[in-house]
């Protein structure tokens, strides 16, 4: 059984670590939220379902177009980024970041938390 308190703790730390990170969620591959730290007003259930749908499409496109297995799906918007990361069989991570985020630092932070999550899920 996954320790949701621990997940919550990891997420809180991650979001607090970089001011450009506006929210994050850990979601099952079928779109249920396991833990989340989202900006106010965002519906957790909806965010979780959308994350799963998006990553599944990204993965499908990756294999169909011979891009190999997909590590992340990035959606760049006017206001900022939505990033989806595969964390193994049982979970994926959604990160919401402000447009001002430096990609290098952001990627580094994300790599760190994904490594941590993979330890929990595998």
């Amino acid at each position, binding site marked *: 059984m996954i320790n949701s308190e621990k997940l919550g703790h990891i997420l809180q730390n991650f979001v607090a670590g970089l001011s450009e990170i506006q929210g994050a969620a850990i979601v*099952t*591959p*079928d*779109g*249920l939220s396991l833990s989340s730290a989202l900006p106010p007003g965002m519906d957790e*259930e*909806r965010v*979780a*379902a*959308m994350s*799963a*749908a*998006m990553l*599944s*499409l990204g993965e*499908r496109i990756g294999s*169909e177009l011979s891009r190999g297995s997909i590590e992340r799906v990035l959606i760049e918007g006017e206001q900022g980024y939505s990033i989806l990361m595969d964390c193994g*069989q049982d979970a994926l991570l959604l990160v919401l970041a402000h447009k001002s985020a430096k990609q290098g630092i952001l990627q580094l932070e994300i790599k760190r938390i994904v490594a941590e999550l993979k330890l929990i899920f595998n």
Partner: protein
Amino acid sequence: MEVLRLVVTGPVGAGKSTFVRSISEIQVVDTDRQATDETAQLKQKTTVALDFGRLKFNKDMVLHIYGTPGQTRFDFMWDLLIHKADAYILLVPADRPAELRNARVISNFMQQRTKAPMIVGFTHMDCPGAWGAKDMAIALGYGRVDIKRPPIIRVDPTNKSSVAQATIKLVEQFSQNLMLKR
């Protein structure tokens, strides 16, 4: 070549993905993932984005067939897929009456967003405890036979010829609707 977009919708486990797999002549695009919600008691996997299949219907027409997810949390996919639909089929499992309510929710959701013609397909009619077609129709609010009632058929998504018949019916419904509009 005309492309007709058909959408297959309905509650969890109705047989939407199976339907698309039965009719498609290309390997379908599916986005089924391990189910961890109540669906897991029913089957291992559930659709999280869409199914896609294709069929050359005749020399002038290609069908693009999209399956939707079943759970309400994926209603953004319902919305996305229905807006481009030329016609759609609502699959309703007859052996799980609890899904009738969800079927009505989906049907209302679609009707608020599209004028595309629809038909209703009862699935799992061969399963133990399945309701009869008449009771199903009444429970869905189609008890009265009047002009507003969509065509209702039985379909077994696991059976290719049954799915072919349902698809023909759906294309007919589309064509009739087109004639009426002219």
